[in-house]
């Protein structure tokens, strides 16, 4: 080929390339609209993304999905072989290749928190993987999808269910570790009031834990005050944030349901008792939170997507009536009962409901209420002692002991006790005593009570 012909061919090729670029730019909007209609994620530039990530997303273009698939297959293979040291890295890459795909973030966070964590016998190792799942969603998933309510809800779920519930034999370890971490960060149970925005604690809250102090105070003002060392409170916080960005009723409903469940949990176990003299971690009933919990349910019921929440609300109210009755808060119990009747229109009277529920509880105590029921009978026992009724006090204590024994007998194995076992009986006694002591008004009354009924011995541990 002569030099002249070579030049001509080169020019032709350049012209063809330019024509292709022009053609591609013409069809791009239409192609993107097809992609959107198929729920695929076009390679749109990321906001607030580090340069390396933006480059990766743009460089792979349409092949991102393919690369993510290959990495995903490797992840599954490694997981099958239990070679997990690479899983966090692969999850990180896969999610970064599909940064706007909420399901991918949710899956990988869930996989690490639920599937990988339970492969380890050591609670510390398990906790590390639960934290990996939380961090993936909180630090990265929400960073690239700040307006995706699903991800807020998924993050809240990890706090509410994985850490807050009793699905894992190491759940007490998670709860205690999280409480320690939060107590260290906040310097107590509530967000600090520091005015200096450069305060190191505030900086860590915002940057490390993505906790916005103003929002925390807003949550407290609307729904609390809540104990921020508890996972339920963080579930409430993330559901609250999700609700702020939720665009439609469906997404709102998901966050509202989480708010209701977490507030119900905060009522059941929103009061955290710790004792610096031992490693006690004990959560008990927080009756003061009931009006806010009721308000949360009622707000949720306004959303037509929350039809099933009515049943959950009724169940919760029933539980609340019985608990308040047991803790001798008769007025509050009757108010809750009135709300329940208004909701369900049930012909059952207050006394009939109490009798029915107590009989049922004697047959089988539900694990969510077991500690509170035992504590309530002990509370009654101490109150009777304080009132100078030793016979009644003894009867109530016997009742508490019998309930504790029956409940624990139904859980003979170590694993069952780790999951849903009760705190040691002395710890329940201590919790009941603390509650009553705190409720007494005036130094005289407290002194009289303490003289009649000294603080129970420190024979308590977090593990049953």
């Amino acid at each position: 080929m002569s030099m002249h012909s070579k030049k001509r061919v080169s020019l032709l090729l350049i012209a063809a390339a330019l024509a292709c670029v022009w053609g591609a730019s013409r069809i791009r909007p239409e192609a993107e609209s097809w992609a959107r209609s198929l729920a695929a994620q076009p390679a749109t530039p990321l906001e607030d993304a580090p340069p390396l990530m933006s480059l990766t997303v743009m460089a792979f273009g349409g092949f991102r999905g393919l690369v993510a698939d290959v990495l995903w297959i490797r992840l599954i293979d490694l997981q099958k072989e239990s070679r997990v040291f690479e899983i966090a890295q692969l999850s990180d890459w896969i999610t970064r290749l599909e940064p706007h795909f909420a399901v991918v973030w949710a899956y990988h966070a869930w996989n690490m928190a639920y599937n990988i964590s339970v492969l380890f016998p050591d609670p510390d190792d398990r906790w590390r993987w639960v934290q990996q799942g939380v961090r993936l969603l909180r630090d990265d998933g929400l960073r690239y999808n700040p307006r995706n309510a699903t991800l807020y809800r998924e993050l809240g779920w990890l706090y509410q269910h994985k850490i807050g519930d009793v699905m894992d034999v190491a759940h007490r370890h998670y709860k205690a570790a999280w409480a320690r971490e939060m107590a260290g960060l906040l310097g107590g149970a509530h967000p600090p009031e520091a005015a200096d925005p450069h305060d190191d604690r505030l900086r860590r809250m915002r940057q490390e834990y993505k906790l916005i102090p103003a929002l925390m105070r807003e949550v407290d003002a609307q729904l609390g005050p809540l104990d921020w060392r508890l996972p339920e409170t963080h579930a409430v916080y993330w559901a609250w944030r999700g609700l702020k960005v939720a665009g439609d009723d469906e997404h709102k409903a998901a966050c509202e349901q989480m708010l209701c469940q977490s507030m119900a949990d905060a009522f059941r176990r929103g009061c955290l008792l710790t004792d610096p003299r031992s490693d006690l971690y004990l959560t008990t009933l927080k009756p003061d939170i009931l009006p806010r919990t009721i308000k949360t349910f009622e707000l949720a019921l306004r959303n037509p997507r929350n039809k099933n929440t009515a049943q959950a609300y009724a169940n919760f109210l029933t539980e609340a009536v019985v608990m308040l009755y047991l803790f001798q808060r008769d007025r509050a119990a009757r108010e809750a009962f009135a709300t329940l009747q208004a909701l369900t229109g049930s012909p059952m009277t207050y006394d009939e409901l109490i009798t029915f529920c107590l009989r049922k509880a004697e047959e089988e105590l539900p694990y969510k209420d077991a500690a509170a029921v035992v504590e309530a009978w002990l509370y009654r026992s101490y109150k009777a002692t304080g009132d100078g009724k030793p016979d009644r006090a003894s009867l109530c204590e016997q009742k508490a002991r019998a309930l504790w024994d029956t409940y624990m007998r139904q859980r003979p194995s170590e694993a069952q006790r780790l999951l849903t076992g009760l705190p040691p009986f002395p710890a329940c006694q201590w919790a009941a005593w603390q509650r009553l002591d705190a409720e007494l008004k005036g130094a005289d009354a407290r002194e009289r009570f303490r003289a009649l009924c000294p603080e129970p011995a420190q024979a308590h541990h977090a593990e049953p």
Partner: protein
Amino acid sequence: MKRLWAIAGMTWRTAVRSRVLLLLVGLVTVSVLLLPLIIRGDGTALGLAQLYLDYAFGWSMALLSAAAVWAGAGAVSLEIEHRTIHMLATKPVRSLELWLGKWLGLMAVNGLLVVLAASLIYAGLSWVTRPGRMSAADRATLTARILTAHEWVPPVAMNASGGHVAGPGQTLSRHFVLSPKQAQATVLYLRYRFSTSEGMRSVPVAGTWVIRAIDGRELFRQRDFAAQFMDNLLRLPPPLRLGRGFSVEYTNQELQKPLTVVFSATDGLGLLAQVGCFEGNYVRAWLLVLCRLGFFSALGLTAGCLFSFPVAAFVSFALLFMTALCRFIERVAARGLPGDVGLSRETPLFQLWDGINRLVFKGLNVLLPPLPHFNPLDYISQGMMIDVAQVGQAFGVLIGGYGVALGLLGWAAYARRELGLPTE
């Protein structure tokens, strides 16, 4: 011999002057140095070091393999294209000498790159695991678990009740015999992997391990909680004088809620004995890499003798890609293609389709070198021993077998290649 070295020297000089080599050196350096900054381990210092070693080693190996194929494909074909081959062709050099000289030159370049990559990764690893970044306890664990050379010691016999199953309260016994070298090991782990009759159980399983001497004396006893599906490691205390023969007993302690423990038949129970140091193992791992690169260079070189550069590069990379799928090919050859092809398995059409596939994959399986067996990545990041025999075997198979076959093919192809054809 002199001619051979002269050709090798020319190839070396061409490669050293080439921008591709410079780019490759840059890529390996940058990636090895950048890796510690971008990788995310499992949250432990141990996991991070393991991941760094795995990724840095694997990435360098992939880059060097691609470079070996590329350089091999261009070594002869580009010289033919640029007509510089005429300088050699007009001299009394035999085709085999040309092929071999080129291959030796390429191997010298491969050797240089391997030394560079190995040094960089070692330096990177030392930086990742430096005392300021890793606690003394983590470093000790890392040295005992990963930066070491363990040998897998399987049991030699089963007890009379046999099987790999321990029911509630039952005891499973295995007999072990250590080689003199293994018996000297200062670090010894019991490694076990099991599943349970409770499929998705997430609660750790309680069991007791007992080690007995041949005369029945109890040397070690420990109650242990372990997770199913995982490689569980139990470090045996150093002063334990096991001798060469002893038995290991496992008693299933899950009695309250009866549960059966099933040990994996292949690698369910065994010992890891530290028989060497990391540095020696690391060198052997890179020797395995060098053997693989020798094969890839031979592959590229022969393809370059047969085809023009673009075709040679394409063919070599296609074969390189296929070697990466060796395990899949082995699986299909043995079990057929996985997945649904829209046909019932009983239909004659499916049988035909499956038969053809198996035949093709069996052929490929026979033709392709057993590279997965010589993959240092399977060993080095797990702290497993690569012994000299394995390196020797890799050399014999990849260089002595496949390399020689490719060399003969390249020789024949080059001898018949027309070098003086006009291009325009």
